[in-house]
């Protein structure tokens, strides 16, 4: 029992210590990785726990970034306490609208429909004149946390920014873990594993999935907000489906069934991209081949590479099918 808390605590301690032991460059890099981690975990609520492959989450990510850009006053910092909730709300509303339509379909149709609606959001910002069209627009100053004109935290400092992002990450992990272990999360998992049975037991499947989709969209918005704040620039590519697919890769790498797995996946993929980009101009070729390899050889994510388990297990009552524990239990059950 003690072991379950040991690894996450060590990691958290390392994360907190990071800005004091490395250079600004690595702090900023870590912020970027954690932001993608938040996005990947948000996506996994729908993909891993909900069983729905969504290709439009970049739209919720990018939309929040655009909201920040549009709400940022010229060259002054925007108030975070005001703009972050608004950005999250925008993403949540978009997720509500898209989800209400997409969830009427299932399986492959759902994937194609989310892809299409994600692209619609892309074109919304690309073709119309909103916020610079295809050129994008700048976020000139990082937002600040201020109350009554008194500035509490200036996100312009990379270290402060990093800790704010870390706090959001911790909150995200706590929220998703709570949801997944609550009756709501169990119902969502039930709908994933046997929709027919879940429905005939009395669970309102559409409503459950829509709620998960909206929450997931809102959290993706948090990630998008900070991504725009950090990068200082938003462009339609932030809503593009290539980003959505890349986040799916992170989810796959980290493993779908856990809460923090996607965070690991994000860290791995971002680190991998950095290494590849430094090695060759044609890094996309290498990344493509690696993605193909992972899909074919590691269907349960990098967890298959080593036996140590990171993070909480979502469906705690039952281990995964392929694991040795469940096979042994099955063998025992048949002969017992």
């Amino acid at each position, binding site marked *: 029992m003690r072991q379950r808390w040991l690894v996450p605590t060590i990691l958290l301690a390392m994360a907190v210590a990071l800005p004091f032991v490395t250079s600004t460059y690595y702090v900023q890099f870590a912020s970027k990785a954690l932001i993608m981690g938040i996005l990947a975990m948000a996506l996994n609520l729908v993909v891993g726990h909900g069983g729905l492959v969504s290709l439009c989450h970049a739209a919720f990510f990018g939309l929040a970034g655009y909201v920040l850009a549009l709400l940022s006053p010229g060259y002054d910092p925007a108030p975070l306490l005001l703009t972050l909730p608004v950005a999250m709300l925008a993403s949540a509303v978009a997720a509500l609208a898209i989800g209400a339509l997409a969830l009427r379909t299932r399986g492959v149709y759902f994937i194609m429909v989310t892809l299409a609606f994600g692209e619609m959001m892309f074109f919304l910002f690309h073709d119309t004149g909103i916020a610079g069209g295809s050129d994008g627009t700048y976020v000139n100053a990082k937002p600040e946390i201020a109350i009554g004109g008194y500035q509490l935290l200036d996100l312009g400092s990379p270290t402060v920014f990093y800790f704010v992002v870390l706090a959001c990450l911790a909150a995200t992990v706590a929220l998703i873990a709570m949801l997944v272990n*609550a009756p709501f999360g169990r119902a969502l998992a039930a709908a994933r594993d046997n929709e027919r049975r879940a429905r*005939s037991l009395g669970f309102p499947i559409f409503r459950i999935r829509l709620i998960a989709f909206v929450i997931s969209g809102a959290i993706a918005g948090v990630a998008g907000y900070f991504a725009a704040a950090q990068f200082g620039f938003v462009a339609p590519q932030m809503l593009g489906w290539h980003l959505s697919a890349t986040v799916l890769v992170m989810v796959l790498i980290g493993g779908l069934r856990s809460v923090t797995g996607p965070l690991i996946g994000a860290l791995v993929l971002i680190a991998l991209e950095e290494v590849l980009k430094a090695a060759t101009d044609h890094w996309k070729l290498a990344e493509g081949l690696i993605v193909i390899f992972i899909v074919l050889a590691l269907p349960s994510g990098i967890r298959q590479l080593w036996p140590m388990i990171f993070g909480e297990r979502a469906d705690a009552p039952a281990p995964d099918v392929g694991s040795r524990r*469940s096979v042994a239990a099955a063998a025992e059950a048949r002969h017992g």
Partner: protein
Amino acid sequence: MAEQAGAALRATNLHKHFGGLRAVSDVSIAVHVGEIHAVIGPNGAGKSTLVNLLSGELRASSGVITIGANDITRLAPDRRARSGLGRAYQKTTIFPRFTVHENVRLAAQAHAAKPLRMFGGAETDIAVRERAMQAIAQVGLSERAGVIAEALSHGEQRQLEIAMVLATDPRIILLDEPLAGMGQVEARGIIDLIAGLKAARAVLLVEHDMDAVFELADRITVMHDGCVIACGLPHEVRQHPAVRAAYLGEHGSAA
């Protein structure tokens, strides 16, 4: 006596066609609390379609279905379930990767006060857990509560499915060929279980096993080619000429 009480589940003039194919034609059936009403008929008679119409997974082309005084014809399957309708499937429909306990707990959760509560672990709801354990005990799977569902034997999985249905505390239970694929010993256990179900409930039983049907049923409806060709007490049905011709005749005597 069962006839006099209002029907728990009643279908009136149900029709279902798929394009030009008439799967169910003008079928009316009523199930009362305290009785097991069996539906039999040769393959292709429309029994499965009827069950799907009653559970809501298929929408009727025309006709009315009511639970008590409420018209549920247009309701989706989950709404019907929440109105007190439980269903066991012909092909075992459970959550294979969850334990027996979790399977039944989920069923109990669906009918709890707050089935979609978003905070607090699911295990903390004591009422739900107790209802689950009761249902598991009722079907005799208490020893196996911690086993992953897909590791159970076929018969045990059927028991599990019934436990799940019981955990939702339904007023009406639809059983779709519960004995399918079972050996003698396993079947006996399920038959006894079903016999005990009718105490405070209305049970609709679709089955091919004639011995079980005549042992369990209080009333029998016979279907053929999508229509009802007979309905009544078991001994009446057994002697009904149309029934013998269409069905029992093919299988020899069912006595």
